C-alpha cells in the first residue's frame, strides 16, 4: 500500500492540504484530523479540492474532530469516509508509512 498523509490544519489558514494533495500518488490516502477537518466539508470555497482528489485518492476524516467542531457526517463531501481513533490506527497499519504535513 502507498502512503497515508495526515493533514491537521484548516485549508483556510494554512497551505498544508495543498502540499499533501500535490504529493500523494494514485492509491495513497489523506486523513484529515484536528483543524484539518474543515477541508473535508461540503459547500465551502475549498470543497472542490477534495472532490477532485477523490478521483485518485482515498480520503478520510476523523469523526471525533468533526463532532467536536459541531460538524456532522452528512456535511462531509460525498466519498470521504469518517473514521474514529480506532480507524485512524487501522489506517496507520494498512498503509506502508505515514507522512504528517505539519
Amino acid at each position, binding site marked *: 500500500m502507498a502512503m497515508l498523509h495526515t493533514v491537521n490544519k484548516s485549508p483556510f489558514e494554512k497551505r498544508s492540504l495543498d502540499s499533501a494533495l500535490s504529493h500523494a500518488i494514485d492509491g495513497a490516502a489523506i486523513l484529515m484530523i484536528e483543524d484539518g477537518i474543515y477541508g473535508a466539508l461540503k459547500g465551502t470555497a475549498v470543497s472542490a479540492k477534495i472532490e477532485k482528489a477523490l478521483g485518485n485518492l482515498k480520503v478520510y476524516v476523523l469523526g471525533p474532530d468533526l463532532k467536536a467542531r459541531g460538524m456532522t457526517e452528512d456535511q462531509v463531501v460525498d466519498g470521504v469516509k469518517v473514521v474514529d481513533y480506532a480507524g485512524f*490506527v487501522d489506517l496507520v497499519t494498512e498503509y506502508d508509512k505515514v507522512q504528517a504535513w505539519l
Partner: protein
Amino acid sequence: MKLAVLVNEGPYQHQAADSALQFVKAAVAKGHEIFRVFFYHDGVNNGTRFAIPPQDDRNITVEWSKLAEEHKLDLVVCIAAAQRRGILDENEAKRQGKSGDNIAPGFRISGLGQLIEAGIQAERLVVFGD
C-alpha cells in the same frame, strides 16, 4: 504491530498532544505494541509535573503518566529540547546546578538517538505536531 509516536508540541496550546494521547489509547486497545513515545521540540513540555490545569479540564501529563504505568509505555523526553525549555529530572538538575526538577512520573529524559532507534525498530512512526 509495533508503533512509535513522535509528539512535537506541548500540551494545551495545540491539539497535538491530545491527538497523540487518543491515538496511543486506541492503538493499545487494539492490541498494538507502542515501542516508544518520543517528545521533541515543545513536546517536552508534556513532561512537567508542575502543571495544574483547571479542575474541569483534562490533565494531559497525568494522563500520559497513568497510561505509561498501565501499559508499560516508554515515554522519552529529548534531552537537548528539554534543556532549552526547562524540563529537568533529578540528575539533570544536579548536573546543571538547578534547584529542583519538574519531570513527571513515567517520563525519562534521553537523547535523540532514541527517536532514530524508534524509527528503526517500530514498523510505523506517527507524528503529531502544529
